[in-house]
């Protein structure tokens, strides 16, 4: 067998290192994409404008001008809260008395949906959640009786409340007060 020269060996390692660099850049981009998108969602210009840090904010009904999150559903009224558990648990409360679909979904900072509570599961009762970090530490707070403890896999994340609307113009008088029962505040 013919021995490869030092020059060929050098080029082999150069090409190999370029391929490794490309693969690492690819994997890093795929890993980082959901995390970066969530950071923009939680701290970007729209989040600043809506003032949603550890408090509930209420989006306008979805139209063609709604361009902060892809694939907005025109049949949902959205309420949001960007949570941060660094300083302690967060208490989430809502009492939307509605006969139609609604849900409260919690997303981790990597975009995973780790909790959902919908109207059927709530069975007409008010939602009272204590969101604690994955250490399970309520940091000295006493959980209110009847409240449900939810462990967040990340200290930062996002709450999205969906309320179904088929005809906002005729339903707003009922839906708006119902969704504005959402509270999202440090315990």
């Amino acid at each position, binding site marked *: 067998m013919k021995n490869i020269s030092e020059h060929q060996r050098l080029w082999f390692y150069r090409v190999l290192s370029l391929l490794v660099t490309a693969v690492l850049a*690819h994997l890093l981009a795929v890993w980082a*994409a959901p995390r970066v998108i969530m950071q923009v969602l939680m701290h970007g210009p729209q989040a600043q404008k809506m003032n949603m840090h550890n408090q509930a904010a209420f989006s306008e009904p979805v139209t063609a001008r709604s361009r902060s999150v892809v694939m907005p559903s025109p*049949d949902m009224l959205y309420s949001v809260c960007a949570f941060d558990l660094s300083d302690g648990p967060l208490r989430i409360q809502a009492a939307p008395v509605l006969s139609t679909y609604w849900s409260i979904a919690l997303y981790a900072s990597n975009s995973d949906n780790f909790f*959902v509570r919908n109207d059927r599961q709530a069975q007409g009762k008010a939602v009272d959640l204590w969101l604690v970090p994955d250490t399970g530490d309520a940091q000295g707070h006493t959980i209110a009786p009847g409240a449900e403890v939810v462990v967040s896999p990340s200290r930062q994340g996002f709450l999205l409340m969906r309320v179904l609307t088929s005809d906002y113009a005729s339903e707003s008088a009922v839906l708006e007060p119902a969704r504005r029962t959402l509270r999202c505040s440090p315990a």
Partner: protein
Amino acid sequence: MSKTGHWSLRARRMATGAALYLGAVVLGLGSAWWVLKKAPWLNPSVEVGAWRANMHAGSQDAGMYTRATVAVNALLALGRDETMYFVASRDDAGHALRAQCNYRISGVPPQARWWSITAYAEDLFLFDAPNGHYSLNGATAVLDAAGAFTLSTGPNEQPNLYWLPTSGQRPLVLTLRLYNPAPALQAAPQSLVAPAVQKIGDCA
């Protein structure tokens, strides 16, 4: 070789090396973008008629690629026990959906508590809809004697059909959402009776 020539050669080699590594990074980032935006077949999905669904959307079990694809294309999706999302970017004949074409979409209400069909442009935002129709849903759908619904999308309103206006010379994406789908459908998404997506006439 003079000392100046030696340094010049070395600088050229370093510049070439830096350009090659920069190219490798661009290749890595570009391939990531391509995979997430243009190659959904890399993710596990179910195909029913013209519709495709990723069964791990919104799930904590999602792999790295599924999680990134969902974040880019359907951020804040719910898990399939809460909501199932079927997406169509081609008609029943296999042709890419275009906003300048008119389509008839017909089917029977899916087995879910509530459902909707929405038209999006390729940037996954809504088209301008002067008539206020962004979607057809379980409340607005009128069923015929056979229990079927029909709607149209495109630049032109079709007689007697619920119309979702689309505009421009750009791709079209349809999304079928099923909220609280029936357990049987969750277990076997391929059992969905897929709405038909058929082009009407020639494109504008």
